[in-house]
């Protein structure tokens, strides 16, 4: 499984990105990423998730593309998503990201 993540926006406007290839990771870490993706039900999410509150300003924007075997899906998320499992996946990706 390959995750390509980009974060933009925020008051600082500083972009961050991460590319995670789970095949290159130890088994425990690979399982952790796969569990996060499954729990977020990523491949069933719509391509665009608008902000839960459209009046938010300086919120982060997230773009996540995942390839898993024959499956491929990209989701754009504005602001903090209301889905708790998706938030957990994005939190983990942000922690793994760099400028």
């Amino acid at each position: 499984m390959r995750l390509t993540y980009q974060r933009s926006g925020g008051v600082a406007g500083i972009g961050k990105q991460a590319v995670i290839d789970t095949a290159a990771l130890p088994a425990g870490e690979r399982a952790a990423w796969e569990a996060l993706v499954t729990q977020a039900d990523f491949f069933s999410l719509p391509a665009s998730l608008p902000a839960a509150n459209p009046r938010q300003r300086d919120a982060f924007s997230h773009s996540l593309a995942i390839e898993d075997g024959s499956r491929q899906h990209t989701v754009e998320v504005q602001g903090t998503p209301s889905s708790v499992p998706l938030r957990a996946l994005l939190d983990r990706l942000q922690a793994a990201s760099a400028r």
Partner: protein
Amino acid sequence: MKPRRFETHFNSSGRCAAFCIVPPYLIEHLLSKAKTEDHRRKLLASLALSSHVRGARTVALARKQTHGTAQISVYDAHQRESTGGATLLWTEAKPATPTDPDVKNVVEFTRATRDFYKEVFKRNSVDGKGYNLRSYIHFGEAWDNAQWDGTEMCYGDGDGTEFNSFTSSVDVIGHELSHGVTQYTSDLDYQGQSGALNESFSDVMGTMIKQYHLKQNVAKADWLIGQGLFKNGEALRSMKKPGTGYDGDPQPADMTHYKKTNQDSGGVHLNSGIPNRAFYEACHAFDPQKNSWETIGPVWYQTFIHLPSDADFQTAANATFTRAKQLGATQAHAVQAGWAAVKIDVKATTEANAVT
């Protein structure tokens, strides 16, 4: 039969003085039986309040007591990326000396913002009607951000390695509250050029709030946004020299370098550097020894709060120029020079088309 027993719970403001004593279902029932318009209005006010209290019990008391008086309160979000479950740390209703450095910053800088709008532009808080100013600190875990969430302000602690706390800069707090001002005025669309104008208005007001707070004229001010937020690095943005805020700052400094992107709502934090610099250059062209809030600041404020929500840079340039011309030739020349520095030629709009 008149429900006299329940009327004693309503005070002179029409609110239920004892909060949840009258349950909402009972108020709804009474509403259907209300005889007079006045009685109905009091019941409605109480119903609205009690549903509010049920939704946010921990903060309702402070909110009610400070309704519409531009009062400041600060809440602890307990590292959650949500305002639910937050607890009150400080309120102007019962002011105490803050001990938490983030509370101290938020109180001082929110006060500076409120004072600036009141004293310079005669504006009573973000909505012009005494909107209460609620801030949530310790928002999110190691959160590198500050935001206006449509109702209140949220400040992260920063990650502790690259960023300090996002409460540490007066212009960032002024920036967030100014998003509230935009929401209640022009409501500039948060996308592309109108979004970059929305961002720029927040930077322009934020930097003027800092200058007013420190009593600095155009030449003395640093024109930086978020100076001190980085552990290593100067600031988030430079309005005087966009693209030099920190090592790798991607902001363009003029229109020929405008960046088209799908990220960040079409580069709203990126291309805002262009109108930001136009403002700095206009202030400088007017008189570097004068104060921005007394020269070009009022031109920008009065123009921006009346812009159409889909305004682009050219619209803003023309409208600021038209307003400046009404004030005098020196102002008009300065505004023209400001936009010319970022490669935008102003065109005077006719009186009839002028944004007033």
